[in-house]
């Protein structure tokens, strides 16, 4: 009796709420079931899931920004980073938790780089964390390779016509990171201050790295 009242108070008896709850929960239940079955078979451990969630949480664009800022102030590091992106990041203590390779694409006066994954959502997760939703959705994936200037315009970015735009399409094994151009007027800035200018979107290549408006 009290159980019924309890359910009713929380709307569990209403068909509409039940349908909504069921629709929302089906895939979550599947995820739990798959994970538990794999654990029962000794293929994964629950602690491993928790540890990997901690790894995922520890990866943010601040890591990529640190790499970019170092490349701006240290030409030797920049050369090593461009020769081997993964080794360059590892030099700064950023570990790669997967088998992916990283290619760092340097923006110059002549070339602006943009990264995409047309087939799915490959992304330099060890240095940028998880990709934004728009990176995983159809419009960006479909259009970045065919009309990059129009895509950039939607991010408020205009690249002069005499600058070549190169779009790099990521794969399961090869990921890219854009090394944006260092903003003018930052001579003598500390690495930490420079890193603050480097956003996730600048390392995807949809915007440049810029000075904060207060400084401009």
């Amino acid at each position, binding site marked *: 009796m009290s*159980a019924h009242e*309890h*359910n009713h108070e*929380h709307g*569990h008896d209403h068909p509409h709420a039940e349908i909504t709850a069921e629709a929302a*929960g089906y*895939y*979550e*239940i*599947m*995820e*739990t*079931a*798959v*994970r*538990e*079955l*794999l654990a029962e*078979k000794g*293929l*994964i451990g629950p602690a*491993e*899931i928790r540890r*990997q*969630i901690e*790894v*995922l949480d520890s990866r943010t664009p601040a890591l990529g920004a640190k790499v970019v800022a170092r490349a701006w102030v240290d030409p030797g590091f920049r050369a090593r980073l461009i020769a081997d992106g993964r080794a360059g990041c590892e030099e700064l203590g950023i570990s790669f*938790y*997967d*088998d992916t390779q990283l290619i760092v694409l340097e923006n110059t006066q002549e070339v602006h780089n943009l990264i*995409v994954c*047309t*087939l*799915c*959502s*490959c992304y330099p997760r060890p240095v940028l964390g*998880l990709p*934004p*939703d*728009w990176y*995983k*959705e*159809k*419009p*960006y*994936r*479909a*259009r*970045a*390779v*065919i009309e990059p200037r129009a*895509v950039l315009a*939607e*991010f408020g970015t205009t690249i002069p016509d005499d600058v070549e735009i190169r779009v790099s*399409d990521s794969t*399961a*094994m090869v990921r890219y990171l854009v090394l944006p151009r260092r903003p003018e007027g930052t001579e003598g800035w500390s690495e930490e201050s420079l890193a603050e200018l480097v956003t996730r979107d600048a390392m995807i290549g949809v915007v440049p790295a810029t000075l904060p408006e207060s400084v401009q």
Partner: protein
Amino acid sequence: MNDSAHLVKKLPNDIGGVEAGPIVMAEHTLLPWEKRCHALADLLDFKKIINTEEKRRGVEALGATVIGSLSYYERWIVAFGNILFQKGILTPEELARKMDEVEARHAGAGEV
């Protein structure tokens, strides 16, 4: 012209260069189960059970209708189930029973 030809020429994931609408800048923080699903994907990759390419193909094998109806991590978990069946690591019956068990557990917890 046969208007089904595009289904054969391009599989559902192969959308580079096709026409599409404006980019929607909205972003969302992953739900706890989505983050667990991502961590699970990483572990399956580390342990050489399902690699990234198998995962992508597994999603593609769901077909355009399912891909278009499910969210990103919903597609992943369904693809993982199918791939684990194909590899003989799980059986459909096992998964169905476990899902019933998990669901019953959730329902039980909800009444406390």
